[in-house]
């Protein structure tokens, strides 16, 4: 006993540390065994000149609710899960514009929109259904991008697990029942790190140069024709912004045109007397920032030698009509020449082409079309597009609905034919003559499988510029492809205009837990307590007799009697 006592303070110390350790261990709740884990994609978070937009939070830890909640219920600690099929845009608009408190939003996109799901086959009515959803999605995207939302907003794709969860939630909300263990209360947990500012995002411009045939003894610089396309996108969910039409179609067209002209120019006998400059620019959604920096890097001689530049923007989902947008007035001789050349080829191909003129306002920083950057430096340029009206800022830059299924590769092939043929006729001075340079069934025919394979790749690659690193594999792939066709390829890295700031954390995993309510736990405790008491009484009665049980309760009173 004696040595035991002297060791007691030491033992107490070690006991306290043991207890502390036990408390620490006990406090870390296991979060890994969820019923369902779903990939979710966050709404974009960005600032324009310090003004915040988009969803400002990433972590989520709230109960789930559906649209069938009782009106007037407090949703500040609820994540509302909304399938796009049943989207009620007025509800969303109300909550966002009136800044009503909400725990979070989860939008469920139909499975077909998932570009990573290669196994999905598309039926006719599914495509029609998607067409209807396109307008709904576009409106939702516009609302979300231009709002400042203080809670997390996520997008996910429908699948069986989440559908069962949603139907459970709807059933509970319909009956107005609070969540219990058996009727299924769900908790949504996303443990994502706090979104950090992306420091100095880079934009990468790639240019390819195909030199023309210079006659011996001719000191003058050959004229140049430029074909420019911006390849990056901007959308509601940056991890899903593949922008197949805006502007994947343009990128594919540029690569195919480069391939065709490199074939033509490989033989000195067929090399034209024009240089060709191919430009893949970044920073398109941000007032064509990349194009501006690229042009500024040109030296004076090159700038003066450019005859005209053709920019391609969204040429993948049109039927019969394309538009040429210009900044110089249509009466201008150069513009007339370009337009006539295009019209002639268009007539032969059986499609219509219109001319749209939009004046540029130098004081306004907004650049709606890529050719405007050229026009500001007094280079003749035009944009070929299926859009008839200039898009607003951050519109038509590759959103959620800009999907592979809405893009028609035959439309792209026809656009390639139009552009390539028009440029070829200009180079070889065959204006108005009935000669086809890139005729079908010739070795210079447009290759539809090349177009298709690049289009498929582009429709699976999200390309939001701040999230593309300097050595992004896709950018390197574009560079490599252009090197195959052009004689000289240069890559230019620039910093994105300081007006735009972006935040990371675009993809996360959502854990869905089925939780029991507090009342259930308390009830269980009550039941167990009474069970143990009953067991105790039963055992005392059977082994020691009823008197012993009664004596257990009588002891305090007998003691009182004794002391009194």
């Amino acid at each position, binding site marked *: 006993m004696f040595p035991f006592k002297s060791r007691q303070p030491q033992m107490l110390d070690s006991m306290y540390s043991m207890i502390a350790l036990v408390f620490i261990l*006990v406090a870390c*709740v*296991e*979060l*890994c*065994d*969820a*019923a369902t884990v779903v990939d979710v994609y966050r709404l974009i978070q960005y600032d324009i000149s310090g003004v915040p937009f988009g969803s400002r939070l990433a972590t989520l830890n709230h109960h789930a609710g559906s649209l069938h909640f009782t009106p007037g219920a407090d949703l500040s600690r609820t994540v509302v899960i909304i399938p796009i099929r049943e989207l009620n845009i007025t509800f969303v608009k109300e909550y966002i514009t009136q800044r009503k408190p909400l725990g979070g939003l989860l939008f469920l996109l139909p499975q077909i929109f998932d570009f990573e799901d290669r196994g999905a086959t598309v039926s006719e009515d599914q495509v029609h259904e998607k067409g209807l959803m396109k307008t709904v999605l576009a409106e939702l995207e516009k609302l979300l991008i231009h709002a400042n939302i203080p809670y997390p907003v996520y997008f996910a794709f429908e699948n069986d697990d989440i559908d069962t969860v949603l139907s459970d939630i709807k059933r509970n909300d319909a009956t107005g029942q609070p969540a219990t*263990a058996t009727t299924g209360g769900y*908790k949504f*947990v996303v443990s994502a790190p706090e979104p950090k500012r992306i420091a100095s995002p880079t934009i990468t411009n790639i240019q390819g140069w195909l030199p023309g045939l210079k006659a011996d003894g001719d000191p003058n610089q050959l004229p140049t024709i430029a074909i420019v396309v911006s390849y990056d996108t901007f959308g509601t969910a940056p991890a899903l912004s593949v922008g197949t039409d805006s502007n994947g179609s343009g990128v594919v067209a540029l690569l195919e045109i480069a391939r065709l002209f490199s074939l033509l120019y490989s033989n000195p006998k067929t090399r034209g007397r024009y240089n060709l400059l191919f430009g893949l620019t970044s920073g398109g959604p941000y007032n064509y920032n990349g194009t501006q920096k690229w042009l500024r890097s040109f030296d004076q001689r090159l700038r003066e030698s450019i005859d005209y530049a053709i920019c391609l923007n969204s040429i993948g989902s049109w039927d019969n009509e394309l538009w040429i947008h210009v900044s110089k007035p249509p009466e201008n001789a150069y513009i007339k020449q370009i337009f006539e050349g295009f019209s002639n080829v268009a007539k032969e191909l059986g499609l219509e082409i219109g001319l749209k003129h939009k004046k540029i306002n130098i004081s306004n920083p907004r650049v709606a079309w890529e050719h405007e950057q050229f026009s500001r430096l007094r280079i003749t340029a035009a944009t070929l597009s299926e859009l008839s009206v200039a898009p607003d800022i951050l519109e038509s830059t590759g959103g959620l609905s800009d999907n592979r299924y809405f893009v028609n590769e035959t439309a792209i092939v026809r656009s390639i034919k139009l552009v390539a043929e028009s440029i070829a006729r200009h180079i070889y001075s065959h204006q108005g003559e009935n000669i086809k340079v890139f005729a079908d069934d010739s070795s210079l025919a447009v290759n539809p499988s090349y177009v298709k394979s690049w289009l498929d790749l582009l429709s699976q690659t999200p390309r939001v510029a701040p999230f593309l690193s300097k050595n992004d594999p896709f950018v390197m792939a574009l560079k490599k492809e252009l090197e195959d066709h052009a004689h000289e390829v240069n890559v230019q890295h620039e910093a994105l205009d300081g007006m735009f700031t972006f935040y990371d954390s675009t993809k996360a995993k959502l854990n869905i*837990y*089925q*939780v*029991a309510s*507090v009342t259930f*736990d308390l009830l*269980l*405790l009550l039941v*167990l307590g009474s*069970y*143990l008491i009953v*067991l*105790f*009484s039963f*055992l*005392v009665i059977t*082994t*020691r007799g009823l008197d012993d049980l009664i004596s257990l309760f009588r002891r305090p009173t007998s003691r009182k009697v004794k002391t009194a």
Partner: protein
Amino acid sequence: MTLFHFFNCAILTFGPHAVYYSATPLSEYDTLGTSIKAALVYLGTALVKLVCLATFLKVSENDSFDPYQELLKALIGFIDVAGLYFALTQLTHRNISQNHKFQAVGLGWAFADSVLHRLAPLWVGARGLEFTWDYILQGLEANANLVLSISLAALGSLMWLRKNKPKTLIPIIYACAGIVATMPSITSYLRRGLGWHLPKVVGFELFTSLMMAFISWQLFSACQRPSS
């Protein structure tokens, strides 16, 4: 709240052992030492069983019922009986009556079983956010196991410690002991061979444990009458 659930399941799984100890005269006669020794014997038995299972059993890919494997598992399960025999007869107990000896040994045996088989899953699983009924069912199973262990210890003490038994009852005693000893195989057959779900299996276990407890109580009191 998840810690709350862990606490609930823990008192369901381990509470009855403590209640049994304090409610019955075991606490008055201070038989804690016996229970602890029985728990240690169970530990040893479990290790031996583990080694035998690892050596002789094949790992099956699917969860179906293989009669040969189950027979082997049942044979290895009899090591349990051997361990109980060792705990009842070979360990030195302070002079406590047979009545209390088997109870203490059974209690220690069941407590060790619960701790070894149920504490770790409870700790890891019940603290998570996700709610399942599994841990409550596991607690009920622990209760059934306590009753079964005490009945088996009673029958064991009848078989090996009591010398003068009525002749007619001996085969019944051995039969009941056999049933209780092979209870694990029976439950695994129900789960895999017949495909019963956990709640049904636990209900069956509770029912049979109560039945077996009643039968062994009757047998024990019947054997006790001639000596008293």
